[in-house]
């Protein structure tokens, strides 16, 4: 940004901006620094991100720096900070620095290496799952809020239902019925077009009137779907789906994402509804700006702030969910370590080796807490009522 001297505007006799320059970012940064808890949350979040990234590189590959998979049965359940017994280990099984920073588990695996590996899982699960949820949320919430009041015709709903069902069947692997239904949908599409063409010539019957009945608005349709989704306790929904699908880290992410978009949808819808009536959106419509440009250029940038806040807090929830699934043995399959399955493995030795439960537990606690604190701080910062207007 260029800096303009105070005098310039006075010299030209023109109106100059009232407040001194402060970009939104800088203002946000200033407010964030004032909110100590949120700032601490951000710092922990960045640390966690760096550790997880480091963990990815240090624990993968053929000869990783920290190998989480080396089994040393002779060294099982060693407490944290104990030195490796170099005399009984073969050289390729000696841990880095000859030290078990967080101790070892019942198979003698280095808990520090396993925690590093698990950090990356937690991070990606959190971000990808929330990313999926936010994308779906913005899409459905946006449609619902912007076009919501338009009623759908009965034929459109029918066609949509048939096509969705056929798509679902194909995806679930019931290919034959899916394709048949898809063909039916195609035929229906042609049929409805034909009816419309004939009706435009003036042939209107009770049948066409039924077909074009303004049945239900898109908004009602989407929001009732949200209500239905919210009826299921999401953890059990996830359990069911995970039980059906092969366990893998990607499936976990997708499933968590697909079952946690409802909050965002409601958020975005509410934002869009209020933004739609704002004067600057009306002005854009009066200028003839296209609908998609109004949505993407005028509405989403203004609606995104509260979505980001809820997303930050959702990440914490997603991490917890993943840990919970792993703890129940339905998460990422072993031998890959996650914080949840370290915790789960450790619970059998909670009296002999408390660090096995304590370390992943505290790690989850700190990360989830930091995300929540940062999210709440972000909400305060972005709350327009807390910042001066002018």
């Amino acid at each position, binding site marked *: 940004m260029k800096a303009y001297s105070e005098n310039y505007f006075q010299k030209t006799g023109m*109106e100059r901006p*009232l*407040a*001194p320059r402060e970009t939104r970012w800088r203002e946000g940064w*200033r407010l964030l620094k004032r909110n100590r808890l949120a700032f601490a949350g951000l710092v922990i979040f960045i640390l966690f991100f760096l550790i997880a990234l480091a963990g990815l590189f240090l624990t993968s590959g053929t000869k990783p720096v920290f190998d989480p998979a080396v089994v040393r049965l002779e060294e099982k359940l060693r407490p944290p900070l104990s030195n490796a017994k170099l005399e009984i280990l073969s050289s390729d099984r000696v841990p880095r620095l000859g030290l078990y920073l967080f101790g070892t588990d019942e198979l003698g695996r280095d808990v520090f290496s396993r925690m590093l590996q698990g950090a990356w899982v937690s991070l990606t699960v959190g971000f990808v799952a929330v990313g999926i949820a936010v994308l779906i949320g913005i899409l459905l919430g946006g449609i619902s809020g912007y076009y919501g009041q338009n009623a759908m015709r009965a034929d459109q709903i029918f066609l949509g239902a048939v096509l969705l069902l056929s798509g679902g069947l194909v995806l679930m692997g019931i290919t034959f019925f899916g394709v048949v239904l898809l063909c039916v949908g195609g035929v229906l599409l042609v049929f409805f077009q034909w009816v419309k063409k004939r009706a435009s010539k003036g042939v209107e019957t009770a049948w066409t009137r039924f077909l074009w009945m303004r049945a239900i608005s898109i908004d009602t349709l989407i929001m009732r779907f949200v209500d239905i989704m919210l009826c299921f306790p999401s953890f059990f929904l996830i359990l069911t789906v995970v039980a059906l699908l092969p366990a893998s880290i990607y499936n976990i992410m997708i499933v968590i994402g697909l079952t946690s978009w409802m909050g965002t949808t409601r958020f975005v819808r509410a934002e869009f509804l209020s933004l739609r009536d704002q004067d600057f959106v009306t002005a854009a419509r009066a200028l003839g700006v296209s609908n998609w440009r109004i949505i993407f250029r005028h509405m989403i940038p203004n609606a995104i702030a509260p979505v980001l806040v809820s997303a930050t807090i959702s990440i914490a929830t997603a991490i917890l969910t993943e840990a919970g699934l792993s703890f129940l043995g339905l998460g990422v399959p072993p031998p890959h370590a996650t914080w949840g399955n370290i915790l789960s493995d450790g619970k059998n030795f909670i009296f002999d080796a408390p660090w096995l439960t304590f370390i992943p537990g505290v790690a989850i606690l700190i990360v989830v807490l930091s995300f929540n604190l940062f999210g709440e701080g972000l909400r305060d910062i972005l709350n327009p009522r807390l910042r*001066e207007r*002018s």
Partner: protein
Amino acid sequence: MMLSIQDLKVYFFSDGRVARALDGVSYEARKGETVCLVGESGCGKTVSVLTILRILPQPPGRIMGGKVLFNGQNLLDLNEEEMQKIRGRRIAMIFQEPMTSLNPVFTIEDQIEEAILVHEKVDIEEARQRCIQLLKDVGIPSPEERLRDYPHQLSGGQRQRVMIAMALACNPEIVIADEPTTALDVTIQAQILNLFRELKQKREMSLLYITHDLGVVANIADRVYVMYAGVIAEQGEVAHIFHHPRHPYTQGLLASLPNRVKRGKTLHSIPGTVPNPAYKPEGCPFHPRCPDVIGTCRVQFPEMCDYGGGHLSRCPVLYER
């Protein structure tokens, strides 16, 4: 002297910036008098009455000096308990938004009676009778039936009448009204202004009326204080201010009022913008927009100049002419 504010200074502190909302403001309201504080947004008129009632949010606000004398007693020295006895009972306040100033979950009766019962030891039946009388006084038709209504069942004008009834509940010596008609339609505003005039005659109370509308001022005020950027620019009898304004700001304001007689001619206008209280100019706060500005205006804060008859103006340049 009923209410007298002397050299009041209120600053707002936020993010290392100091906004001088009130920069040495003095005004007074005598018994039975209607005093208008007129000024544009951010000139400090609302801050000054919040300070009188001690309901200024602190922080960020801070009272840096001055006195608020009410019948000779400095309200700034009182503790919260003593202040509570004055607030509502001897000094009452009416706000701009009747919609948000009434509690939506209580009936009109509950709210007016509460205003009475907080300050006086009377039984419910008497409070109820007073309540009906008050509603009658402020011109609400069939008050007995309205008692059980909730605020949302009333129109904007009626809500403002209820607010006035609440303010009058304990026979206050002075009523402070902060833009009470700004949110109302013109025909309703005329009704409320008439009501204020009637009530003042009947009850011999003082009225401190805050507005930005010069038409309202001309209609209701005995004396006027024109505020600009946290200082009093001009003060005097209403006829003096409107017929012989002595401050360039007052002159500019009056000349810039549009009406249909001026159609076709360019309207007089004051150039520039109202200053942000955090970045007020040096010297006279009005000098960047003033047509009569001279060198000293830019460096020296102007003193009040006396035109006699209580008419004072903070502009030595026009005084010397």
